[in-house]
């Protein structure tokens, strides 16, 4: 029996350091306003899923928007070194 080893996927794993800021319900659930972390997540989407599992966030990704370095971005965007990431819960201004 052959053992499949996905070398390609491993080679693509890159660790980046990012800062995540939390607001409102996410800050309450995380118990912190921000954190710095090293992640191998391939996208913002993956990063949220991983943090949501770790910290038990109640909001699903499709309820949120995401911003990097103070601009709204697409969930599929890759993480860049030093990025400041903010997950944006449903808003209620006005």
């Amino acid at each position: 029996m052959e053992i499949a080893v996905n070398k390609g996927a491993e080679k693509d794993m890159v660790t980046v350091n990012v800062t995540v800021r939390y607001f409102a319900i996410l800050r309450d659930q995380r118990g912190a306003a921000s954190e710095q972390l090293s992640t191998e997540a391939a996208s913002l989407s993956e990063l949220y899923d991983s943090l949501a599992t770790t910290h038990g966030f109640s909001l699903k990704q499709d309820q949120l928007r995401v911003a990097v370095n103070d601009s709204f971005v697409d969930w599929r965007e890759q993480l860049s070194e030093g990025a400041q990431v903010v997950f944006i819960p449903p808003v209620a201004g006005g």
Partner: protein
Amino acid sequence: MFKFAAEKIEIEPLKKSLEDDRAGAVVCFEGIVRNHNEGKAVVALEYEAYETLGVTEAEKILAEASTNFGILNAVCVHRVGELKVGDMAVFVAVCSAHRHEAYQASRYIIDEIKTRLPIWKKETYAGGSSSWVNCQHLNNAAACHSEASHGHK
């Protein structure tokens, strides 16, 4: 001009900033904290904002209003921090040559602010419980984005 304010909104300086001899109309909107929401008695609330992104997005909204309706100028201030019933949460003022476009732009600005700015509202209810508005319908994503049950204060 858009800004967040941690203290009571003073409207006279804002209206003064709109003075323009070409303007025949100034429309002002004040959003006030009301004492109930979705059938619950609200005693206090707290606004929290992601201010850097909020200012950028709000300036876009004001520019859109200017382009879309041909107004002369617009200002908006949104509170952050703790507010009580009766406090002003948001102020929008628009000036234009004639009233029609000022009314339209005012409506556009407040509607867009409510759906686009990264601002969150935590309500405290009679009895002491509290919740982040729009974030509690955990099993229904659509409900979280709905404005239907949140008429303006």
